[in-house]
């Protein structure tokens, strides 16, 4: 496959960036999107140019490091992570626009890499269980009803990639925050801190400068892990209940 890429290039956080055009050839449809960028970078290095900086780690769709808005869609046209996106999703001769996540809470560090530590601080505000849990306990020690376990699992799937923020016209982190709030809130281990967790995490979310929810649903459409839009609904309920309790 032969492709025209228009890639966001930006030297560092302090400088202005712009889209730069590149041509790549000999791309196999079986390559992942990141492997295609590897090809581009080899090409750039050979010609003495600065390679394109982009985030990646596991390349297995489980770590949440990869990002990229491809043709206006977070993680590209399929519902998966950029590392799991295959080039067969595109046509020979296509022009692809590749941009970083856009949100004021996710400033661009270089090229396609953004600083997502705002997510870490939301987790630090309450996305955990305070009691030391030690090694994995015997599974039957604390019975969890099957529907609750399923619900927790569905939300535990969030990999913290930030595609929801990138896709949201308000740069909101509601889907991410709700995934963690719901995951822990429904389990017996997380229940004691249920009310303070949602209040602290939402307040940190606001402090980081993320926007509010206007229920456009773009986040849930973009989420590679299928966190449902109703997670936000559920978090809203948790929040109002916790605010009433005042803790």
């Amino acid at each position, binding site marked *: 496959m032969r492709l025209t890429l228009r890639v966001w290039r930006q030297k560092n956080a302090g400088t202005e960036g712009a889209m730069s055009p590149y041509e790549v050839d000999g791309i196999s449809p079986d390559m992942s999107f990141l492997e295609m960028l590897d090809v581009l970078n080899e090409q750039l290095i050979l010609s003495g140019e600065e390679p394109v900086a982009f985030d990646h780690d596991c390349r297995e769709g489980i770590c949440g490091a990869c990002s990229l808005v491809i043709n*206006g869609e977070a993680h590209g046209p399929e519902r998966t992570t950029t590392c799991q996106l295959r080039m067969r999703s595109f046509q020979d001769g296509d022009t692809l626009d590749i941009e970083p996540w856009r949100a004021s809470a996710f400033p661009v560090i270089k090229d396609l890499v953004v600083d997502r530590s705002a997510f870490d601080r939301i987790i630090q505000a309450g996305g955990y269980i305070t009691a030391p849990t030690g090694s994995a306990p015997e599974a039957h020690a604390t019975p969890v009803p099957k529907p609750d376990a399923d619900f927790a699992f569905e939300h535990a799937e969030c990999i913290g990639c930030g595609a929801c923020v990138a896709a949201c016209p308000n740069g*909101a982190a509601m889907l991410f925050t709700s995934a963690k709030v719901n995951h822990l809130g429904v389990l017996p281990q997380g229940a004691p801190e249920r009310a303070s967790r949602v209040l602290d995490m939402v307040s940190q979310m*606001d402090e980081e400068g993320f926007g509010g*929810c*206007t229920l456009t649903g773009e986040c849930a459409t973009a989420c590679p892990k299928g966190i449902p*839009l109703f997670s936000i609904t559920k978090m*809203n309920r*948790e*929040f109002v209940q916790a605010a009433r309790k005042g*803790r």
Partner: protein
Amino acid sequence: MRGGGRATGGRTLWDSSVGKKTVMAVSGLVMLLYLVVHMIGNLKIFFGPGEFDHYAHWLRVVGEPFMHYEWTLWLVRVVLLVAVVAHATSAYQLSRRDIKARPTKYVHKKRRASYATRTMRWGGIILGLFLVWHLLDLTTGTVHPGFRPGHPYRNVVDTFSTWYGNVLYIVAMLALGLHVRHGFWSAAQSLGVGSRTRDRFLKTTANVLALVLTVGFVSVPVAVMTQVVS
């Protein structure tokens, strides 16, 4: 704030983006309830000046003898004023936050959410402006040449005998339909009552409410234009 004293419930709500949506939802639903009643009341115009003007008079004496003349009406007006102010203030503050949170647009544009979703802000502004005109036109009569207090039937026919009266009113009612269509469903999510199993019901209710309100309100100017009411 962990461990320390936390602000009271109301404060927590108002200071948070999630809580402000709760305020929007509740105030929106209060206005929506009022609009349903208002729309049904308006339909009395089809039964002639006697019934319509009598109904308007009754609005002033509801609750008597417990309530004094116009007390109930003023109570409703105060509740609505609080709702409008709370709704518009949170809409303004949330919109500012949203725009600030996403200052850079993507170079590659993509078609976005549904029409009703995208028009909430502009639609809301249109409704706010309409509300001011509507009150000055048919409540106080300030911008209504030849306004006759106590003769609402005549005043209504008057307004809808002008082209601008019809245009302003019908545009605003279409905006209202769109606003309610996304707003009702949104409010359910903001209040945490939406779910996968209830979604069909909520979306259908939103559509029906939007349609009934718009058709009900618009039927009045259309009736005047077509001389069904004169």
